[in-house]
């Protein structure tokens, strides 16, 4: 789906929705610890993963991203005890939208990323890169 060009050619473009209080600090920590992940990973922080609109996910994939990863608050959410369930419902609705638009629902993923989950985040990015590459193989 992406118009592969220049140095980004070997990496997939992934839009990451992070959350201000929980997963964004976890992603910061990956940088602070000098862990590397591909430059095609772009992070857009929002207050909480329960507030992400499914159409934003569709829009990202139509705008040139190969995949959307929701770095959810998970069980650490300071706002909602059922944040994961709500975010999961948003992902399912997004996957329906993707199917209708003829886009593989595998292009959206979610996982709880805690405020110290730097290694988990980097591993998710590496795996998602491979999964997205295999979708086009």
């Amino acid at each position, binding site marked *: 789906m992406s118009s592969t*060009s*220049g*140095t*980004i050619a070997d990496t997939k*473009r992934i*839009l990451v929705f992070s959350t*201000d209080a929980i997963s*964004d*600090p976890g*992603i*910061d*920590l*990956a*940088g*602070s610890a*000098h*862990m*590397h*992940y591909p*430059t095609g*990973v*772009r*992070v*857009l*922080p*929002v*207050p*909480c993963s*329960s*507030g*992400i*609109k*499914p159409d*934003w996910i569709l*829009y*990202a994939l139509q*705008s*040139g*991203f190969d995949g959307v990863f929701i770095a959810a608050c998970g*069980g650490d959410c*300071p*706002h*909602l*005890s059922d944040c994961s369930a*709500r975010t999961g419902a*948003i992902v399912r*609705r997004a996957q329906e939208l993707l199917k209708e638009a003829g886009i593989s629902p595998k292009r959206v993923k979610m996982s709880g990323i805690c405020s110290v989950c730097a290694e988990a985040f980097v591993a998710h990015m590496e795996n998602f890169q491979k999964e997205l590459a295999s979708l086009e193989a």
Partner: protein
Amino acid sequence: MSNETHADKPVSRAPKIGVFVCHCGGNIADYVDVEAVARAVADEPGVYLSRDQVFSCSDAAQQDMIDVITADQLDGIVIASCSPKLHMHTFRNMAGRGGMNPYQYVHVNLREQCAWAHRNDREAATRKAIALVRAGIAKCRLTRPLEPITLKTTPAAMVIGAGITGLRSALALSDLGIQVHLVEKSEHVGGYVGQWHALFPDDVDGNRLVSELMEQIRRRDNITVYTGAEVVDKSGVVGGFTLTIRRSNGETETVQAGAVIVATGTELYQPAAGEFGWGHPRVTTLDAFKRHAESASDGTLTWDGTPVRTVAYIYCVGNRQKKSASCPNPNTYCGRYCCSATVHTSAWISRRFPQVRQYHLFRDMRAYGRNELLYEEARNAGAVFIRYGEDDPPVVSSEGNDRVSVTVKDQLTGGETLEIPADLLVLVTGPVPARNESLQQILKLPLSKEGFFKEIHLKLRPVETVIDGVFIAGSCQSPKNLEESASSGLAAVSKAAALLLKGSVNKEPLIARVNPEACAWCGQCDAACPYGAIECVNENGREVARVIESLCKGEGACVPVCPKDAVFVEGCTDDQIRGMIRSLAEDPEPARQEAQA
């Protein structure tokens, strides 16, 4: 914050945005071509000027930015620097000092989420940096001025729970001149501490401690104590709660308080029938044993009228449990106070009843800090300590009505099986969350996965909760000893007093909003909101949703559930997010530097 804003500037003209890209010394500039980034975004729509700075957070750089904001009457600024966790508030305040609306400042994370994560590819990192800054500019173009929500505060606080934490907190609030309503569910104050005498580490009498605190409280004009009373209703918000108290005789009373400190304490684990012999007349708990031994008037320790010569203790009963068929909902946490309390009790028994033999069956000895000395004292006095393994708990069998026998594999002697006949078996039961469902519902407090009240941040915001103005202290938050409970009570007092004594409290205006024209009131946003922050109002003859500013937390759970796309969170509007997505999806070519040989 300055009240002087650019009020005179025309609202309709195109926004003027200043962009500042920070080198962070070499932290960003070593991995990203910062100057190329500043050049590449200079022609973005709305950008009036774009500069790079060595350290945007330095006083000199901040003054430069303030000068530019003032001289050029900027509407918005974008600073691409470190993580927003470090300097978002620094720069937001700086923007305010420059006379700009602080909420038209946008922070871009170029250090943690770009430079440091891509140290191996300067060119690609620079491209990404340009995309990130463009996304910030796209967001900034669509910001609008926001004013903080100001709420007045009532200089009164409610403390719920008159255990040691609540009593100490009430006095500290009173010292600061804050009116206190101290509400206790039971007829007596003091909680567990008030029922015990000698307490670790220094044998201070808990019962007397409570009496002394109550004596001081009675002398204070600004503390009202309600015993046999429960909080049955709460309305209002931080700074101005209205709380209804119901006494045991059914009478209710309504009080005003600007803040609430919850200090409802803990309960002790109740063993299940047959658990380590529970139900046998010679099996008791540490709490009951302690109260019994302290009430013994002469020099002999007896139980049911017969002398006790041998006492065995089993530690970690009801705490540090593992999930199994017989224990589907384990209490996995450590009770924290119990090891210290048991070695202290043992040393105390040895002093008072030297003829009593004591056997301690423990898993790990967690008598930390100076309580280590009590462990030493207990051992020196002759108590025997036997370590059992997590998967090999002691087995208790009855030896008639006056005796039990405990069989244990001693890990310290390489797994030798020991059989200990005991006149009395003491189960060291740890703290478990108190059952406070109604209070939890009324205050809308979140629980941790262990079932205790949950703080915002365990380390950095340990007494604040997501409900503004409601604080937690003592063992209702997690197992704590007396000293730790009092400390957390005083921490909660200082947080509560800090907001009450200021007279008013400012709340971030980054909350949900409803577009009334698009709304057709279906109630889904209301159902999605855990804070009761949505109300249905009549606007021009139509029922529409409205956000109650003071209650909204701005997490946006109401946003994706709206079938009409009528709800948004300030700073994350549909247009802003879509604009950012478009910019982030690009992989822009850095502008070549001109006139360089």
